[in-house]
């Protein structure tokens, strides 16, 4: 079975969609001639030409807005925001325009638009180049938000995003670009909005996305040795959130730990806890625990960054505590 890096999976998905539909165009800063600062898009301009694959000036508000204008007039643009930390620079176009354009027009337009961006910490880029971005966007209806955590998901979900007739924000994790994984030849378009149980278990449900899922899996491995069987769910899409899969698991395990690479406040972790406290409450056998960055920022200095982002140890401890609560 072919093994690709997450980075290659992104590139292949984009290339395959550009081959499949000539309306797909791709632009962003240094994505064309240079193939992207994370080298996710090399060779695309060579293959598809300098009209379909373009470098932009540094003007996120303009080119993200241009993606919207292009989407409502017949193209299927994919725009790259180099770092997800730059989402705030184009925030008006994303939350006030793109998310609302179909609605405000009373359904006159489809908005088949994808924004790709690299998020997440752990690689020492400092406070303005490490953030996870989903919680800036999740309170705004009208956007689909995808966080692939593996090469196969990076491939299939990006293809799914580009095929969507709605705006999709695909947040890749920059700490995962070198991750290798199998991408079967028949991997096609993956449907958005489906979480995946990546490890089955009876005792505790752990929910996360991206880097946190990988760490949760490590934690599960350790805990298995102590007889704690952890079920790990990779959300993959955050909007719409697959609450059914999570609820199903809570019903089985009665225990929930939500792991996020983000500060504690006003995030999707709260929504899962809230799901547990509402529809899930009669199944709960222990308090719902959240492992996240609390009130900390993404830091530059390595020890601080390591402390800020949930580690395998912190995740393991939280699961253990939850598992043993009566």
């Amino acid at each position: 079975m072919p093994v690709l890096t997450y980075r290659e999976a992104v590139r292949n998905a984009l290339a395959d969609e550009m081959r499949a539909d000539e309306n797909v165009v791709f632009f962003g800063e240094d994505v064309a001639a240079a193939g992207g600062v994370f080298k996710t898009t090399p060779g695309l301009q060579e293959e598809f030409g300098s009209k379909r694959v373009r470098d932009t000036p540094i003007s996120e508000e303009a080119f993200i807005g241009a993606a919207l204008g292009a989407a409502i007039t017949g193209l299927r643009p994919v725009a790259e925001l180099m770092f997800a930390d730059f989402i705030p620079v184009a925030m008006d176009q994303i939350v006030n325009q793109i998310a609302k354009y179909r609605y405000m027009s009373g359904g006159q337009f489809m908005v088949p638009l994808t924004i790709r961006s690299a998020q997440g910490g752990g690689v020492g880029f400092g406070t303005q180049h490490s953030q996870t971005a989903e919680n800036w966007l999740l309170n705004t209806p009208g956007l689909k938000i995808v966080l692939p955590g593996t090469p196969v998901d990076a491939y299939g979900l990006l293809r799914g995003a580009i095929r969507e007739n709605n705006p999709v924000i695909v947040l890749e994790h920059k700490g995962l670009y070198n991750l290798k994984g199998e991408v079967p030849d028949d991997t096609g378009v993956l449907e958005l909005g489906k979480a995946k149980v990546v490890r089955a278990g009876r005792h505790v449900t752990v929910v996360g996305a991206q880097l946190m899922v990988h760490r949760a899996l490590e934690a599960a491995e350790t805990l298995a040795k102590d007889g704690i069987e952890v079920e790990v769910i990779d959300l993959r899409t955050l909007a719409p959130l697959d609450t059914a899969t999570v609820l199903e698991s809570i019903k089985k395990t009665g225990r929930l730990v939500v792991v996020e690479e983000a500060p504690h406040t006003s995030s999707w972790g709260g929504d899962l806890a809230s799901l547990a406290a509402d529809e899930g409450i009669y199944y709960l056998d222990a308090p719902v625990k959240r492992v996240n960055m609390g009130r900390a920022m993404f830091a530059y200095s390595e020890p601080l960054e390591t402390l800020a982002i949930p580690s395998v140890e912190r995740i393991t401890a939280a699961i253990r505590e939850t598992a043993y609560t009566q």
Partner: protein
Amino acid sequence: MVVINIPQPTVSVTPLDVDTRMTALRKMLEIRLTEEKIQEMFLANLIRGTTHLCIGQEGVSTGVASALRKGDTVTCTYRGHGHALALGMSVKAMIAEMMGKTSGCCKGKGGSMHMTDASIGLLGANAIVGAQLPIAVGAALTASMKNTGAISVTFFGDAATNIGAFHESLNLASVWKLPVIFVCENNRYGEYSPQHWTTPVENLSVRAASYNIPGVTVDGQDVETVHAEFKVAAERARAGEGPTFLEMKTYRYLGHSRTDTGPYRPPGELDAWKERDPILLLKVKMIADGQLDEVEFGELRDAAERHVAEAVEWAKQEPYPTEADLLTDIFYEG
């Protein structure tokens, strides 16, 4: 006394043929009377929220629309009723929208600030200052990539030329040589602030030089001048020569929105501008050329008034959206 500087045309302005003139006159009257009615309805609480009227500025939207072709697209501002009507939106669809009715152009989900009608190329009015410019750049990208020969027009105010999205859009359109016409309606105020408080240059067209594109200051009150200057820009754009920035000097007679009475205007300014009313200027020309007389003009006006009144009566009877409409039109399902 307030003296108005009238920009000289930079191209030769030939009189439009009588049919085109008549269409423009009718359109401007329709806009004027619709706006007057909207103001009345707003004060009578038949329209909620807020509304931004373009009375006095009809020459710009009408002149530009008269030079567009099918397939061309437009984005504009919350002060967008004139653009919508000039492009061909029905008064009914507009009034119903403003009343929040399902038969409004946006099913009542847009409102006064979001007049949109894809079928006439109106991609949307926007309530965020400057946000419509990038969107127009994107529409031009489509035209350019698909070689449709269409152009993309975006309307914005004088004060909008101070926001980042303006700068980024002109730059991007220039670098990509896209067929966009940036039409600034310089009505001398951004809300309650006169231009010179917020903008350190008098003729905004000088800003085009930063993007290496033509910038022209135009007499926005003369619909034929607007038409002529716009046409040159449109031809450049259609020929693949890139964007143009047109600054239309114009004036709004009413307040910025709602109940603003315009206390910030220097005495005499409004009157001076009313002497250069776009409807008046065209009417005078047509009378001078024997194409119109006062009686006929009165009839045109009355017809427009009846048309608007009928639309209002119709819209009043139309249904409101219901709970079934609450979550629709957010995502395309399919």
